[in-house]
């Protein structure tokens, strides 16, 4: 079975296409066969789609499953008693919850991989950390648990942590100012969800014409742009407003899904999202053929982490665009790409919704 520890000594954005391909193919072959043997529903899918998991194939040929399937079914490749954590997420397209089952190994690997990827921008030392969210988000288990899980996941990079918002999502100025004073000349790690940062932090600071001195800090944020697109806030505008209200210059967006926690796709210094040696991205046309560089299409995400559930190859409902591979001006290797937001909703014809 593929062991993630073999990759852990390799810098996460250092491998060129060919070297990465070999590692990916080995890992995905093992994972696919593992899930085939241990998850009967996954087995039915592969059998149904006439896919032979005993044959080694290109990563792009392994059937992908949809994110919605985690809402419709409990998909797991472990026994019930091995589950140590269940992550739930509402997603967007319907009200059902996705359920992701973690065992000790997968949970540990998520942390290991996240650490490798994030330390490429934060460095290896733990830092003072400001979470732009409320402490409730991790205290209350009924809260958005994917959000709570991400906060907990990123908290491992902090040695002293404060939450910047109170339970009503109002800025705790005194607490932040005191914290800034204490860590005056240090690099601070600021983390949060894109929309919350915008709505409950930047926007409030702008409206009250306040400035929080965090210029030496690094901000990492994720969680999607859907709501910000509605307010026509682009990544650039977001960065400018962050700089204006806090002085932070190093701002990194990340893209990831609850189904593939850990192997996040991180923005580089040139503003592009990158896949690491733990993940891959394929953009697909409506007929599922692969898009060329510069073509928009559905985002398929690959992660070598999931062992406790069959989430290693997933089709998202996001639209993305591949920008290139191995040749980003930032110097990092791997595919780099852009996310254009969620697929537009469309009408379904038919005759069974008279009362809506």
């Amino acid at each position, binding site marked *: 079975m593929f062991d993630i520890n073999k990759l852990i000594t390799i810098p996460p954005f250092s491998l060129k296409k060919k070297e990465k391909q070999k590692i990916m193919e080995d890992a995905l072959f093992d994972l696919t066969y593992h899930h085939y043997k241990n998850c009967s529903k996954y087995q039915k899918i592969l059998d*149904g789609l006439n896919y032979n998991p005993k044959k080694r194939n290109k990563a792009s040929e392994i059937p992908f499953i949809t994110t919605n399937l985690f809402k419709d079914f409990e998909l797991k490749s472990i026994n019930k008693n091995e589950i140590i954590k269940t992550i739930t997420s509402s997603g967007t397209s319907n009200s059902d919850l996705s359920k992701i089952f973690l065992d000790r190994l997968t949970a540990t690997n998520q942390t290991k991989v996240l650490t490798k990827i994030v330390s490429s921008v934060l460095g290896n030392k733990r830092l003072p950390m400001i979470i732009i969210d409320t402490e409730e988000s991790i205290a209350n288990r009924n809260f958005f648990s994917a959000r709570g899980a991400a906060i907990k996941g990123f908290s491992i990079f902090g040695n002293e942590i404060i939450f910047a918002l109170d339970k009503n999502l109002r800025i705790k100025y005194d607490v932040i100012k005191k914290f800034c004073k204490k860590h005056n000349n240090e690099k601070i790690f600021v983390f949060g969800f894109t929309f919350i940062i915008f709505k409950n932090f930047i926007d409030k600071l702008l409206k009250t014409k306040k400035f929080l001195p965090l210029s030496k800090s690094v901000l990492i944020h994720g969680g999607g742009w859907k709501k910000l697109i509605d307010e026509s806030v682009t990544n650039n505008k977001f960065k400018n407003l962050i700089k204006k209200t806090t002085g932070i210059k190093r701002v990194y967006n990340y893209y990831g899904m609850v189904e593939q926690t850990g192997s996040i796709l991180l923005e580089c210094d040139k503003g592009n999202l990158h896949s690491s040696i733990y993940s891959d991205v394929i953009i697909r046309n*409506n007929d599922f053929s692969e898009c060329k560089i510069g073509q928009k299409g559905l985002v398929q995400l690959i992660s070598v982490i999931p062992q406790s559930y069959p989430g290693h190859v997933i089709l998202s409902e996001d639209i993305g665009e591949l920008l290139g591979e191995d040749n980003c001006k930032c110097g990092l290797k791997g595919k780099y790409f852009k996310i254009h937001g969620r*697929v537009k909703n*469309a009408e379904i014809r038919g*005759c*069974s*919704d*008279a*009362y809506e």
Partner: protein
Amino acid sequence: MLMSRDKKIFYLVGQENINKNPLPPFDKIICEFLNDLSNKIDKFKEILKYPDLKSFSFWCRKANIAKYKKEFEDGKVRMGLGLAFHITPSNVPTNFAYSFVFGLLAGNANIVRVPSTDHPQVEIICKTIKNLLNIKKYSKIKKMNAFIKYEKNDEITKKFSSICDARIIWGGDTSIREIRQFPIPERSIEINFADKYSFCILNSNSLEKIKKKELKNLAEKFFNDAYLLDQNACSSPHLIVWLGKSNEKIKKVFWNEVHETVKRKYELATINVVKKYNNLLKDVIETNNIKDVKRYGNDLYRVSVQKIKSDIEKRRGAFGTFYEYDCGKIDDISKIVSSKFQTLTYYGIEKSKILDFVVNNRLKGIDRIVPVGRALDIDVIWDGFDIEKNLSRIIDVK
């Protein structure tokens, strides 16, 4: 557009106080009005952009209404019931118009709730009706009809329900269940179009000998049945039962031709591609006797099943996903037919044989037996009953 006093109901045609007194079914003035309506819509300059408008105008043309009239007349004296309240589906743009004509032909006054989503077809039809009703000779009909629009609102639905003589709900089960909470007067009747399941029988022996041109024609007809309404109409086929010898070669010829038609005529929004694929994966997980899945890109999915059980009606294809079953003789499938079954489209088999199958096996389902290509042809006989006769009362004169 007029707004009602409570400002939640928009009157596209007509107004709040309507005359609920009925007319005799197929009254002369009604038939004249429908003939005018057909002509006016037909002359609409952008008619070619909307094939469904064209179908509607063709359907309510003089000759067709005359035919219905002839079929209707059975020597009994009838009158409309009074006021019919129609709740029509939001995703078939012209359905509300058919429902209205059903109500009107039977001699009723009508309140038609049109789709709350915006369709140009709705606007065109309502405008045409409004203009026609302003002609003096139609003043009688004008007072009897209203087309309204409102966002889902229980109070409004309750109000209209409480005063109607007939309530017509165009499905599905959830809508019917919800609306049924609101009582209608004791003597009033209800016509509900519940969720239905439809399927298709193809005879491979006939297909073996089919000529290229006829095959193309058949594929296009099948396409219309299945794809025109995203395989989401109550009469769109989900299951294909193959009669005759089981021969993949023959099937392939058929499906390849269907695929060509789909490629030419069908475009699926990206989100629906994901939904279609997700639906396939779901079915693969939930179905226990799948023999084989064949995908033609994302244009067409075929799922052949080894065995067929009564739960097949839960397997509903989406956007062109078909379950296939090889069947030695037609009687073998009698066990799957429940009262949920509506339309059976056929090719290469005598309709009398299918009728015998329904009668001899004493089936509770299958309300329509029509050739491939006519699944979506709406008719005054629907879901097993005569809508005109149901929407009128007999005056027994002795």
